[in-house]
């Protein structure tokens, strides 16, 4: 009995000590992770007190309630406890292993661990909290696209610039030998050659040459493809297009006779006939084949009259046309050139547009898009053709018949135009007269001096009466004449 009492006392003392230790532990609520070392204290306590198992069960359960999500650590620590418990039991207790004692011990932690498993569902962390670059793949794609666009812009711009420079280097000598002023952008006070191309755009370069007999000047425009725009580059992959060189020679009035003539690819001529004012008015027939003169099938002719065609198609011109047919898009000589048809919203324009004697050439650069600077040399003979054409236009004169026909044509066109616009012109004149009257009336009204007002009104009345009288006189005269 005494031994039993002593045992109970010892038990109580050690129990309180261990509880105190666990209290300290319970107070720490923020502990998330457990290392095995955290349970070192408990291990010591377990080794010291042999018969503490039931209490330990209770306290570890408390621990489990307070611990948080990390199951693995918990499992490990529990196992550690179990192991220690087992070894402890084996070492210190002489009593046989009581399975009943440990049933609850193992089950309870299991059930409690399964309980703690249920409410836990692992949810995917939202993308913006993930802190990984992979989720931003669309943004990276966009930025890459932009960079590709910028790269293409730089490359395309440089290529166009190199092509333009190559063209100019090839043609410089010929131009400088024929023109005094090569290269002018209109900004200098004096007419000095700049000697370089005038860049209008990333894909358009201009060159103005002047100072030659026969012509006022020559404007050369290098219209390259938009290599600096990636969208354009991609569109061109579907449909190949060529770079073009457009040359416009303005002739002096006395250096060119009156005719309208065009030669070029059939497609280009059809388009020009629709678009250009002079071609649509003077060359009403469809483009004719030039086989009669020995031209290749790809080229067709639009002409005001047959005499002009005969005159234009001399041997040298034919030579140029046949040899370089693939590079020629269109050639257009006209004394009535006024540009493309102007589509005005108020109906017909009230007066004929200004015309200028012009020679227009459009050439395709070989390569149809995939051009290299050395391809520009192939265009040099075409420039020779241009110079030859200028001289030819000066020399070529229509004979008497041709001139008569030409004059008749021009008179006809003008008459048609006047007829079409007669009504509009009348209306315009009427509206102008009405405006004048209104302005006068306003002036009268605005006069502050009543005297002056009266006088002005009387003057206006008198003027109107005079007009009426004049009209009546005219009518009388017409009646008399008719009689």
């Amino acid at each position: 009995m005494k031994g039993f009492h002593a045992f109970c006392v010892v038990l109580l003392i050690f129990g309180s000590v261990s509880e105190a230790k666990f209290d300290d532990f319970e107070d720490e609520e923020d502990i998330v992770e457990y290392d095995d070392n955290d349970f070192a204290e408990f291990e010591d306590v377990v080794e010291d007190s042999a018969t503490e198992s039931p209490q330990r069960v209770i306290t570890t359960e408390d621990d489990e309630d307070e611990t948080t999500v990390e199951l693995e650590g918990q499992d490990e620590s529990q196992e550690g406890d179990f192991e220690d418990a087992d070894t402890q039991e084996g070492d210190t207790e002489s009593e046989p292993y009581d399975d009943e004692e440990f049933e609850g011990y193992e089950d309870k932690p299991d059930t409690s661990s399964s309980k703690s498993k249920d409410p836990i569902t692992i949810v995917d962390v939202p993308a913006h909290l993930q802190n990984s670059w992979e989720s931003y793949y669309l943004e990276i794609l966009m930025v890459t696209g932009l960079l590709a666009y910028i790269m293409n812009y730089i490359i395309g711009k440089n290529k166009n610039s190199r092509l333009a420079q190559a063209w100019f280097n090839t043609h410089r000598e010929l131009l400088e030998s024929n023109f005094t002023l090569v290269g002018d952008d209109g900004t200098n006070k004096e007419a000095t050659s700049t000697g370089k191309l005038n860049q209008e755009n990333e894909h358009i370069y201009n060159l103005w040459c002047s100072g030659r007999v026969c012509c006022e000047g020559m404007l050369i425009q290098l219209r390259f493809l938009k290599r600096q725009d990636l969208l354009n580059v991609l569109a061109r992959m579907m449909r190949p297009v060529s770079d073009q060189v457009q040359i416009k020679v303005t002739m002096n009035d006395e250096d060119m006779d009156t005719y309208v003539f065009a030669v070029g690819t059939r497609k280009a001529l059809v388009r020009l006939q629709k678009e250009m004012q002079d071609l649509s008015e003077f060359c009403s027939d469809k483009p004719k084949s030039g086989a009669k003169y020995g031209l290749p099938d790809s080229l067709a002719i639009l002409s005001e009259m047959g005499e002009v065609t005969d005159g234009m198609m001399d041997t040298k011109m034919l030579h140029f046309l046949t040899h370089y047919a693939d590079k020629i898009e269109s050639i257009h000589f006209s004394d009535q050139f006024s540009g493309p048809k102007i589509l005005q919203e108020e109906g017909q324009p009230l007066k004929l547009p200004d015309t200028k004697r012009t020679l227009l050439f459009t050439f395709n650069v070989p390569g149809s898009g995939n051009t290299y600077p050395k391809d520009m040399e192939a265009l040099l003979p075409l420039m020779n053709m241009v110079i030859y054409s200028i001289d030819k236009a000066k020399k070529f004169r229509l004979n008497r018949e041709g001139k008569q026909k030409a004059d008749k044509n021009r008179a006809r066109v003008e008459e048609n135009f006047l007829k079409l616009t007669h009504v509009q012109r009348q209306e315009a004149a009427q509206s102008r007269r009405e405006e004048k009257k209104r302005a006068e009336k306003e002036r009268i009204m605005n006069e502050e001096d009543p005297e002056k007002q009266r006088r002005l009104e009387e003057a206006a009345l008198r003027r109107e009466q005079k007009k009426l009288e004049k009209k009546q006189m005219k009518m009388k005269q017409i009646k008399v004449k008719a009689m």
Partner: protein
Amino acid sequence: TGELQTKLPAPCRRYKPPPSECNPALDDPTPDYMNLLGMIFSMCGLMLKLKWCAWVAVYCSFISFANSRSSEDTKQMMSSFMLSISAVVMSYLQNPQPMTPPW
């Protein structure tokens, strides 16, 4: 002498830029369209908080710049560009989530 005959220093005509105020716009309306589209998309991106609208606006303003004519106003270009960049930045400040494709 042949060369001398062909050249005449006196009647040198100065270069006059062709009087085509309306023609450039008619020939190639791309930069104007792209400018307008860019502004519309950037306003959509800002108001409706759609990221892809803002990105398309940036692309539009780049395309407009690449196609621009020499007579084009750089101020217009810069303002459209700045607007599109601000649309992108504002969309991401308001909502740092990565973009979802519009389909």
